[in-house]
């Protein structure tokens, strides 16, 4: 875990100077401002807004999973409760004419998420590890089921709707158009990301890492791991609540789906596919998962299955996630031996792609074949139309999958060999320990 313990340092210490460190944040801010000017269509604005929200949510999840070592299966509870409180407060502001403008409303969501964390966190952070995971799952189910019973608060199946334009305006912004909402979300993404990064640099953030790696030794130096876990849980609940509040503003509704197990699962996927050992991992994961989610739901009915497969693959072959994979190459690039692995990557890419296509074709064939007769059973893959009912499609899928797998396994063995050679060079030059 040496690698992971110094993870939050990576950005700053290894990039050398402070100016480069602040440069990254500045570039991120400029990118957030410029993005909607380049891609100005309504669909892309909606996507950017959703991606922004899921970045905050995934980062808040990583306070628990990556930094404190608490694997939560019920994180969406804080997200959902933040969203519900936001919707209720927005309705109250509109009906009582309180002078609170919309840009401050996400804080209300944060307070909602935090309040529940304060309430329940003490009990559930008593235990870490597997027990914590199970309890968080139980709490998630408890809240999700209760939300359907307490209809007056959670609005039953239909949820609580609200109208963001009825709130007091600020700088003449009505927050009716999606562009203004996007900038509101972008602002909160920047603020939350900076705050959460700063949190990893505080003594509390460091002691959280220590609790993750060795709670017993933390006790010996005089800290109570339970209290540390509780504090981390509260911070995570707060930022998840902000994300939930932004969702309520974005969709102008809060419903019980926000609290549910699927939402908790998606944020877990985002954080772990992106990689929990680096601060920026969940950001990558949130972008990828949200993008895939928006893209795949139009193309296929079984998009959750693809998520499951990607996730299983990540856990089996790259438990560090995308960020872990990227950072693995850092010492090689610095040692100048990265060129040694590129050819083997190129060789491995083709059969791996074939394998992926084979798996996709198999899944789609099965999905269309069993779907009801009325739906189209023609699969359009890379411009080639496949008929799910024809045996030739089944044969092609099988050949691609099995052939791709066998050849890919051979080429990946070569990648490992090339990697070992490159790593030896890097080790000799002192960039890899």
């Amino acid at each position, binding site marked *: 875990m040496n690698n992971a313990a110094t993870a939050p340092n990576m950005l700053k210490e290894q990039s050398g100077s402070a100016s480069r460190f602040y440069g990254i944040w500045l570039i991120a801010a400029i990118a957030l401002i410029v993005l909607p000017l380049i891609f100005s269509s309504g669909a892309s604005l909606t996507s950017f807004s959703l991606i922004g929200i899921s970045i905050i949510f995934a980062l808040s999840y990583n306070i628990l999973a990556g930094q404190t070592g608490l*694997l939560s*299966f019920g994180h969406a509870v804080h997200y959902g409760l933040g969203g519900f409180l936001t919707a209720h407060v927005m309705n109250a502001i509109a009906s009582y004419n309180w002078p609170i403008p919309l840009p401050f409303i996400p804080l209300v969501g944060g307070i909602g998420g935090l309040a529940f964390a304060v309430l*329940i966190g003490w*009990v*559930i952070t*008593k*235990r*870490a*590890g*597997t*027990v914590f*995971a*199970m*309890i968080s*799952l*139980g*709490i*998630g*189910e*408890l809240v999700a*089921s*209760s939300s359907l*019973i*307490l*209809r*007056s*608060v959670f609005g039953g199946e239909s949820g609580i709707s609200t109208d963001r334009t009825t709130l007091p305006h600020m700088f003449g912004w009505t927050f009716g158009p999606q562009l203004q909402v996007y900038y509101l979300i972008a602002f909160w993404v920047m603020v939350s990301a900076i705050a959460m990064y700063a949190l990893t640099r505080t003594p509390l953030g460091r002691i959280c890492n220590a609790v993750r790696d060795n709670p017993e030794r933390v006790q010996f130096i005089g800290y109570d791991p339970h209290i540390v876990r509780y504090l981390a849980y509260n911070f995570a609940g707060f930022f998840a609540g902000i994300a939930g509040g932004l969702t309520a503003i974005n969709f102008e509704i809060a419903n019980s789906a926000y609290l549910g*197990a699927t939402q908790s*699962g998606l944020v*877990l996927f985002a954080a*772990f596919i992106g990689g929990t050992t680096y601060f920026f991992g969940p950001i990558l994961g949130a972008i990828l998962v949200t993008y895939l989610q928006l893209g795949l739901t139009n193309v296929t*009915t*079984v998009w*959750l*299955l693809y*998520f*499951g*497969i990607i*996730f*299983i693959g990540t*856990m*089996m072959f790259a*438990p560090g996630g995308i960020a872990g994979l990227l950072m693995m190459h850092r010492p090689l690039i610095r040692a100048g031996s990265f060129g040694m692995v590129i050819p083997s990557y190129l060789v491995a890419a083709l059969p791996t792609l074939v394998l992926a296509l084979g798996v996709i074709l198999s*899944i789609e064939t*099965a*999905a269309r074949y*069993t779907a009801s007769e009325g739906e189209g059973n023609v699969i359009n893959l890379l411009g080639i139309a496949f008929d799910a009912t024809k045996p030739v499609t089944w044969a092609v899928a099988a050949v691609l999958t099995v052939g791709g797998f066998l050849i890919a396994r051979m080429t990946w063995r070569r990648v490992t060999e090339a990697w070992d050679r490159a790593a030896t060079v890097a080790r000799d030059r002192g960039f890899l320990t």
Partner: protein
Amino acid sequence: MLELIVISTLNGILFGMLLFLLSSGLTVIFSMMGVLNFAHASFYMLGAFFGYQLTRWIGFWPALVLAPLLVGAIGMAVERYGLRNTHKHGHVAELLLTFGLAFAIEEIVSMIWGKSPMDYRIPAALDFPAFTVFSTNYPAYKIFMLAVSTAIFVALLITLKKTRVGLIVQASLTHPTMVGHLGHNVGRIFMLVFGVGTALAGLAGVIAGPSLVTQSDMASLLGPILFVVIVFGGLGSLPGAFIASLLIGLIQTFAVALNGSLASAFGPLDPSLGPSVLTDIWNVTIAQIAPILPYVLLVLILIVRPMGLLGTRET
């Protein structure tokens, strides 16, 4: 009232024994490998669907034997090719692997069989009332379920406590390296235990399928309750899992059978108050809160006894 108590007790014990069929496998796998198999309820669901499909093709009785074997084989493959390769990345990666698997299995099942409930019927040979309590006929199939799960329970107990295989399994729970030094293939023991655990879950699925609903969301409905059972009983403790299974089975069954609410006991609230949280709580029936009772129990036991009923192991 007495009739309700008798019937509910029978049903409660039955549901409890079903839960124990699942939680025993889960507990043994957990104590042995340190991995909580998140997909355990998914194997239960696979059992029910395989049972349904095989019953249509070859009849119920062959399905009762074949479906659990199939599920066990899938379980062994998951252990051999999934968990064993992931082991080097740590327990979190293994737990998350089974989490992803649970997601994938649910999607695959709903892809193949659709999202609506299956027409999985009780076999004709068992479709008659076993006996009559007061005025209610108690179905023979439920007695059959009870008999099967009790038989498995006894067989499991004898195997674990009295046979050489059980001795080796128990030894590898606590001293895996020592068992390895004595010449046993610990990897194969793990694989077999995983296979037997998942096969038991599959068996529970086959026999529960006709009685409960066979649907693609049955795993996600039962899974969390299963985890409540093993945390409540104390993670890694078989007797704890047994007590917790029965307790939660009884509590849920009784809650579903009772139709009372605060409003029916004390009269409705003053209508002038209008709809609020208070009226929601006042009017909700015990049957409606039955699904959340296990989780309330979970929170209570955490406050009173964080290690669970009979748990000792600090994780």
